[in-house]
């Protein structure tokens, strides 16, 4: 719940999130260090990335305690970006195949 005087929460919760961020970062690094490859690598990278992003936005940036109207105003517009990523991935795949067809020796 938002307070008129600002966001005030127990220090303990910040320390826990801080520790979690360290652990998750260590996990992401281990993915590379242990040479995990293929779909498992990409899945793990994305899971750790979204977990860390979620913790920072919800606790450190206090999104979890803001009014729902502000949460929607900030978090909904970036969802369009998934459409952009989807469109560009399709386009890039097409470019790649066209290049293979025309540039291949």
């Amino acid at each position, binding site marked *: 719940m938002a307070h008129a005087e600002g966001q005030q929460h127990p220090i303990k919760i910040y320390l826990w999130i801080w520790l979690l961020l360290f652990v998750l970062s260590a996990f992401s690094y281990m993915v590379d260090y242990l040479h995990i490859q293929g779909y498992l690598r990409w899945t793990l990278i994305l899971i*750790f990335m979204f977990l860390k992003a979620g913790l920072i936005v919800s606790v450190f940036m206090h999104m979890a305690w803001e009014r729902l109207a502000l949460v929607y105003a900030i978090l909904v517009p970036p969802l369009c970006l998934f459409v952009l990523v989807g469109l560009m991935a399709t386009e890039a795949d097409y470019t790649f195949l066209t290049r293979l067809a025309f540039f291949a020796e």
Partner: protein
Amino acid sequence: MAQDALTSTGESIAVPDGLAGVASDWSADKEAFGVPWGKAMMWIFLVSDTFIFASFLTGYMTVRISTTVPWPNPSEVFALTIGGQHIPLVLIAIMTFVLITSSGTMAMAVNFGYRGDRKKTAMLMMATAALGAMFVSMQAFEWTKLILEGVRPWGNPFGAAQFGSTFFMITGFHGLHVSVGVIYLSIVAFKVWRGDYARKGNYQIVEITGLYWHFVDLVWIFIFALFYLW
């Protein structure tokens, strides 16, 4: 849970939470969102910045998928040999930990700000700025190393030419954000130390500065995952 909000005429009215709260916050005759305007403006700026970084990362994805030349292996390109040990991606891992540490000190600074602890807030903000400066220095080292190895925006000895252009573009723009953040933090920390906000009894600015700093960390998490680890 309902809570009180001030109308434009200064009366206190009860406003609902949940979906009914979304409707009333956007439509009622009072300031939207019920947060100080500085915080709302910082959030809106951060949304626009999200779109900038997302466009860069999407551009990177597009050129990486569409190139027929093999992409350089970031794990090897950013490896360092320390004390005879060859460690992959080690500098980037250290940079990540430095930035997360700085996010923690920033969160604590916001907390002590709202407790009205002037000295601890200023000290923690200066610590955050120092960690940010450390991050930028390590990035400068990384850039120097890559440039000396022959990485240019138009080509590099390791593989696809697009590696250099996207690397300098994305990490450069992020580094610029960190540098601006260090300056911003130092200014606000100095004003906290001088007691400007203690006199007003309002430490909101520390939280707003914190939002910017956490965002810089947030962007790094995406760059770390999508550029360095992918």
